[in-house]
């Protein structure tokens, strides 16, 4: 990085920052636009069209976000220090079960209706403490032994939790002391600001709150309603009706609405509701984004350099004078706290968790491991793309959605139902070898990646572009669009 002349430092810093985060902004914009794109492509689709087949469903996007967050926290410790944290599911489970037990009123000194964001922070602290305790013991070992002891801790917790919550898992219900009619809810927003909380959860089948119900806005609107002609425009009802069903536009309209004098007084805000599926995805995404930037910040700090030094040559890092033991324990606990956020979001989204799907090493850590390898180990954001691949494959091949068979059936129905070999139709073979066999194909892809693509998806992209995409992308844009360079200095 060139040192800029005096007087120019401030502008240069901002520009540098904007350049480094250009690709982040692009990805985030794509994610924000995704619900709208998905709606535009698919809202009139009948049956399984190509658009439905190729684009992940919006509910799947929520899963991608919380599990991608966990996979990134797994990569944070495993990919950057080289210590395979095979029992990382312990932290996912810590986040999930802390939130669910708290909602059940089973955690001492924590009210059952404590706002979710506060629970999230508490879960992170708890996971950090667990991480320190586990790290203090585990980092006396290296290599295979380290992987085994973290696995041991996580499986111990799984066996313990399995005995407590059983096969059906824990599903919080308000305790007897709660007032009647109280319901378990999870809200994401700015911690400790009651007005800025939005409910999330896959179990919310009704539409979200009308904008009218958002505190503060209602009074403002009543005030403005007194001004004649401000709140109604001819034909606006039809426009609002059309818009509020559109996932992303609904939110955009609501947002514009909330700015007094812009859209607010004109549009009838009580008719615009937040689309639950979209808000779920965007709110979970907002939390994941914050956590990603925190992790990215740490990796780009001197601590991150020490982590890489430990991975490359721990003896040398120690010889230079770093106390590698404490660096390892600290970053391990930190990644545990970040993983607990993934678990807490999972719990809020599903309102349920079993020892199997929240703590088990084979299921939770195993999936994180697979997605990390496919996405690229030691790339931080790579595992997120690995999870996208994983979930998209599950949608296509999985028994639940079986998109592949449905999609092929719309176009090649006759061929599919014709007999292939042994008097079994092609469809029969598809249902036998593909439908519900996503683990098989995922395992094959995983093996191929381990053998032939050690860098994973993102690692390969990086080596093809000659560096991290955050650095190479702006360079590439400037080469392709020379007009932009006028804005340089």
């Amino acid at each position, binding site marked *: 990085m060139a040192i800029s002349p005096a007087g120019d430092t401030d502008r240069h810093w901002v520009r540098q920052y904007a350049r480094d985060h250009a690709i982040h902004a692009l990805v985030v914009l794509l994610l924000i636009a995704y619900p709208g794109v998905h709606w535009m492509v698919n809202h009139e689709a009948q049956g399984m069209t190509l658009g439905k087949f190729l684009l992940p469903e919006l509910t799947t996007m929520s899963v991608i976000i919380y599990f991608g967050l966990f996979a990134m926290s797994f990569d944070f410790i495993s990919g950057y220090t080289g210590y395979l944290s095979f029992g990382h599911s312990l932290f996912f489970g810590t986040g999930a079960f802390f939130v669910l037990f708290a909602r059940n009123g089973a955690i001492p000194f924590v009210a059952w209706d404590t706002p979710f964001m506060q629970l999230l922070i508490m879960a992170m602290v708890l996971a950090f403490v667990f991480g320190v305790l586990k790290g203090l013991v585990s980092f006396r070992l290296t290599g295979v032994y380290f992987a085994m002891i973290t696995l041991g*801790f996580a499986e111990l917790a799984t066996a313990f939790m399995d*005995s407590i919550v059983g096969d059906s898992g824990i599903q919080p219900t308000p305790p007897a002391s709660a007032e009647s009619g109280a319901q378990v809810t999870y809200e994401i927003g700015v911690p400790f600001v009651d007005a800025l909380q939005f409910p999330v959860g896959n179990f919310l089948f009704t539409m979200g709150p009308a904008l009218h119900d958002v505190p503060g806005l209602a009074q403002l609107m009543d005030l403005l309603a007194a001004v004649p002609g401000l709140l109604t425009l001819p034909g606006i009802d039809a426009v609002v009706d059309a818009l509020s069903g559109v996932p992303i536009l609904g939110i955009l309209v609501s947002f514009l609405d909330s700015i007094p004098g812009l859209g607010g007084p004109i549009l009838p805000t009580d008719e615009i509701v937040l689309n639950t599926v979209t808000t779920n995805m965007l709110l979970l995404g907002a939390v994941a984004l914050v956590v990603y930037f925190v992790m990215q910040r740490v990796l780009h700090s001197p601590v991150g350099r020490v982590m890489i030094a430990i991975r490359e040559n721990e003896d040398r890092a120690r010889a230079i004078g770093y106390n590698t033991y404490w660096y390892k324990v600290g970053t391990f606990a930190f990644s545990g706290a970040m993983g607990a956020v993934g678990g807490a979001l999972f719990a809020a989204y599903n309102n349920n968790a079993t020892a199997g799907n929240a703590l088990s090493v084979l299921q939770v850590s*195993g999936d994180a*491991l697979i997605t990390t390898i496919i996405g690229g180990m030691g790339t931080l954001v790579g595992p997120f793309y690995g999870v996208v691949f994983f979930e998209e494959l599950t949608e296509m091949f999985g028994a639940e959605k079986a998109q592949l068979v449905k999609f092929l059936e719309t176009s090649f129905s006759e061929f599919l139902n014709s007999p292939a070999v042994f008097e079994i139709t092609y469809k029969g073979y598809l249902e036998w070898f593909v439908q519900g066999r996503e683990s098989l194909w995922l395992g094959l892809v995983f*093996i191929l990646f381990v053998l032939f693509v*050690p860098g994973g998806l993102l690692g390969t992209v990086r080596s093809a572009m000659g560096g991290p995409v955050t650095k190479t992308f702006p360079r590439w844009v400037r080469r392709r669009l020379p007009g932009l360079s006028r804005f340089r200095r």
Partner: protein
Amino acid sequence: MIEPVVGQAITDPVAWLNVVIAGLGTAGVYVMIASGLSLIFGLMGVLNFAHGTFTTVGAYVGGILVMTFLAENASSVLGAYVPFLVAVVLVGVVLALMGAVTEVGLIRRLYDRPPIDQILLTFGIALVIRELLYIFAPLWGADPTQDWKAVDVFGPPLLESGFTVDVFGLSIQGLRVAEFLLGAVVVVAVWLFLTRTRYGLFIRAGSEDDEMAEALGINVRRVFTVVFAIGIGLAGMAGTFLVWETGYAVTPLMGAEKALLPAFIVVVVGGLGTFKGTVVASVVAGMFFEFGIYLNTNYLTEFSELPNMALFILLVGILILRPQGLFGQEEVGGH
């Protein structure tokens, strides 16, 4: 894990005797699965995550062979035990071939990569084999989502659940005796193989220092293949046995959920790469597991997972107190 006697106080010596007898039987199963894992790690430094899944394959292949060879409820020695032993040996051969193919085709590519890559590869192999079992098990009438019960009625009477044997006036379940005996046979056979045969000498030399062994003219690559084949073969033979063991439900998930983790614990507790350690740790882990069952049936009935917790407590405790394992050498930990 079949005869949890309810109502025996912890001060009653008979309760302890039962735990020890059951523990020796469980130790027999553990040592059969874990000795292959231990050999493979000791020589090749590969922690084989697919080991449990090969055990499951052994259970299915063994079940199929037994159903082919044995008459239902056969009681004569010739009709029951000889075909059973033939089936066990055949499973060993078939699985050893599978192991050799896996080693030559896949694992061999990774010897000069970091050990984590080998963990990842075998993890992937386990996933794929498990799913293949889901696909092909129905061909033999086994519903992969449920315990494969059809094969239980076949097989020697010794393995049936109600059968007991008198040993020094104690009536012990036949399955326990068979487990212990087969475990002992495996231990003795591997021990003799390692110490008395030329190939065993190669293996010990390779474990000590594979570069030096290669320099002395030993074809270490072939030794690797042979050891991997033997290890997988042993895992498969143990799997055949698990068909009758009521603690293990035969499904494609059995290996990963029930067989692999105890075997890992045994190998790590004993010390990675020492066969003696594996044998001793099998006995210790067997006792821990059965003591967990005893506590679960008599005292802490809520904790259904107590036996497994006992195993993991053993693992964590040993790794804290003696990280290199009971008989492991200090520097092995740096693998």
